[in-house]
């Protein structure tokens, strides 16, 4: 077993490798291997794996790439991530990718798929329309057809006919992956000092750019370390971060929240890897149906899923409660419609429910967060004071 610092360093290197080196190596190792890029948030990676492909998440360039070409494509009042994604692609960072998937999350990502088509990037470009109808016989069937299209594109490249056995095998691997990730969050809920949110972030994000088998191996080792008494508890409040599911804040900001006096006990940074709650049945003869049903019945709430039958504010409130959090930090990428349009819904409900929160906006390429740090610090202090007052009253 590798040491925890070594594992974390390995994950950090993988997570921010804008050349996507691991996927290049993987592809070069065998003839017929297919690399498929997917944009945030969620994609059923199982099907790409089953088709002999490697799904690789493209989260933009963060604060590590100077954007030149991308700015020519996007007005100043559009979030930052599409310009950095297209910049990466046009600069050849992803020239070993065979195809690109654009999950239906917002109009920006949707229209970006058109720009990829226009620029003839990859052998295929697919906008993946996730169903907004949640009846398995309607939305579920449509979703299965969407997955079939993706499989068809991959088959055109590598000729591989995917069997139920292949899919079940992949589903099982991703079940393990989800379980291990969930385990990390559960440990952190109780012992958040055992690993910082920054380190956890590296470990999760690395998993979006390497084969799932390798990630599972890393996760097992990390979990084994986390299960030991490591680190020292500090006097920090517990918070949940919500709204940062697509364009990612710079790592400095992720770090700053904890440095300012908070333990982040849940978040949606890597929502895609945690979208499905629990296992997908890995033993049916209709695995695509199992994946579709899992999406319909076992999805985490998301800003891109019509939620009126299962309102997101109560779901987030439940996470806050289950994690024993003291409050919520709403972090939205600037100009991020889905996140910003959800904000009034959450905030109104949380005012009524008495859940404390703060909110701020960020941009992936900005790494100055003095003001945000102060804001988070004040939030943490106010909660601590409130707790002290409460203790006094009770005493």
């Amino acid at each position, binding site marked *: 077993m590798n040491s925890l610092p070594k594992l974390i360093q390995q994950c950090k290197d993988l997570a921010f490798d804008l050349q996507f080196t691991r996927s290049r190596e993987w592809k070069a190792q065998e003839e017929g291997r297919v690399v498929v890029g997917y944009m945030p948030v969620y994609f059923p990676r199982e099907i790409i794996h089953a088709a002999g492909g490697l799904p690789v998440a493209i989260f933009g360039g963060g604060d590590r790439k100077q954007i030149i070409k991308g700015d020519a494509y*996007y007005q100043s009042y559009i979030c930052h991530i599409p310009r950095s994604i297209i910049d990466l692609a046009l600069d050849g960072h992803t020239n070993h990718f065979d195809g690109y998937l654009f999950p239906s999350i*917002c109009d920006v990502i949707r229209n970006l798929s058109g720009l990829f088509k226009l620029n003839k990037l990859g052998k295929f470009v697919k906008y993946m329309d996730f169903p907004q*109808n949640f009846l398995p016989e309607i939305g579920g069937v449509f979703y299965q057809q969407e997955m079939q299209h993706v499989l068809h594109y991959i088959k055109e490249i590598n000729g591989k006919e995917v069997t139920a056995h292949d899919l079940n095998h992949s589903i099982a691997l991703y079940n393990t992956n989800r379980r291990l990730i969930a385990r990390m969050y559960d440990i952190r809920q109780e012992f958040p000092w055992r690993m910082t949110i920054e380190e956890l972030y590296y470990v999760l994000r690395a998993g979006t750019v390497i084969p799932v088998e390798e990630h599972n191996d890393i996760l097992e080792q990390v979990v084994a370390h986390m299960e030991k008494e490591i680190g020292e508890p500090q006097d920090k409040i517990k918070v949940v971060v919500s709204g940062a599911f697509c364009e990612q804040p710079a790592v400095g900001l992720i770090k700053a929240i904890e440095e300012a006096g908070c333990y982040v006990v849940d978040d949606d940074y890597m929502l895609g890897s945690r979208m499905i709650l629990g296992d997908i049945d890995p033993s049916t003869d209709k695995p695509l149906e199992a994946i579709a049903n899992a999406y319909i019945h076992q999805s985490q709430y998301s800003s891109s899923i019509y939620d*009126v039958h299962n309102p997101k504010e109560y779901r987030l409130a439940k996470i806050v409660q289950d994690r024993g959090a003291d409050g919520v930090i709403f972090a*939205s990428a600037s100009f991020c419609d889905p996140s910003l349009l*959800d904000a*009034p819904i959450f905030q109104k409900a949380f005012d009524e429910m008495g859940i404390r929160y703060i909110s701020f906006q960020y941009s992936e390429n900005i790494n100055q967060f003095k003001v945000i740090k102060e804001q988070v610090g004040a939030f943490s202090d106010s909660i601590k004071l409130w707790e002290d007052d409460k203790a006094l009253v009770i005493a």
Partner: protein
Amino acid sequence: MAQEAQKEKSMVLQKEMVEGLFNDLDSAKEKGRKVCYTFIPGNLSELIRTFDMLPVYPEINALQNAMRKKSAAYIREAEKHAHSEDVCTYVKCDVGMMLKGNIGPTGQKIPEPDILLLSYTGCFTFMKWFETLKREYPNATVVMIHTPYQENGVMTPEMTQYMVKQLKEEVIPKMEEVTGIKFDEEKLRRHLELSREAEDWITKIFDTTKHKPSPIDAYFAGVYYIGPINIGFRGTQQAVDYYKELYGEIQERIRLGLGPITPEGEMKEEKYRLVVEGPPNWTNFREFWKIFYDMGAVIVASSYTKVGGVYDLGWRHDPSRPLEALAEYCMNCYTNLNIPQRIDLLSKCIEEYQADGYITNSIKSCNSFSAGQLGMMREIEDRLDIPVGFIESDLVDPRYFSYSNIKNRLESYFQMLAQRKMMEAHEAIHA
């Protein structure tokens, strides 16, 4: 004089229709009529009429409020309630209006919805908007029909089937439940037949810009022309009559060799013919228009007039396949087309209507339109070797309309067009 009277007739017809709708809404609760909130892109007008419901279009209220200078206060109100400065201002204007008592642009109260029908065509914000409204109107029945995006530039049978299943198993049963009216397919077919007729007429109307001078402005006046077909009258005899009348008036203008009518009368000389991508600004609509007609610029086609349906490529509501027709209609609205399709459509307009230039009016708060517009512009410039221009404004937030910026940009653009025209004329002489 004769033309004036004719012009007035179509306008009178339209005014009657709009006023009639607001009056009906005003008395809806008294008369026991059910009210359906829905959006323009992908509006299922014929189905709403089949169930004898009255439609409310939140974005129409928003734009009309903006034209009446009421939107700024509503937007401020919404922003006080945690709505971001950076999201679609239609949503904020609507939410603000609701928070202030839901008094519509005509001063009449808008009744609460019995149904929130989200056909969710071409824009994610619609979904968020209705999530917000659902929380404000907890008693309304929510009906969602997911319209797949034309990601590959086609409407496939499976996409249509997905929508038809939703119509059959969710939308129609819920409408039956709320209205207590049994679904009558024959009635729907009759409405669809009338829709088809109106669609033929409106296509012919927008096609008249082939003439030189163009008898109409297909953007600034076009937004009025699309009114009836978009706000719930598609599928009625009234709409057919309106379009027939309008077409007749335009034919008369062509016969007389007249250009478009502007708020300050006839446009005298057509100097530039343009195609515009993007919605207009509503808060300063007249000023905005004036910059163009003062320069002798007429818009011969615009993408905005296609948000409620793209008819120029031949698609029509087909009464013999009623549910399929509804499905295809939704999928075929402009913002549900992928970026290459949008480029093809605009290129076709530029060529067919012999435009001299292409302008993008980029709307700050509308990602559905704006995200990708720069790439589209570049592609059109390369493909057609046409001068392109770019301006920025907003739909209903007056803070983002900078008259001097827009005017300066457009003036430089028109100078460039003038120079180009001179050079072309010069080359033609010496060729």
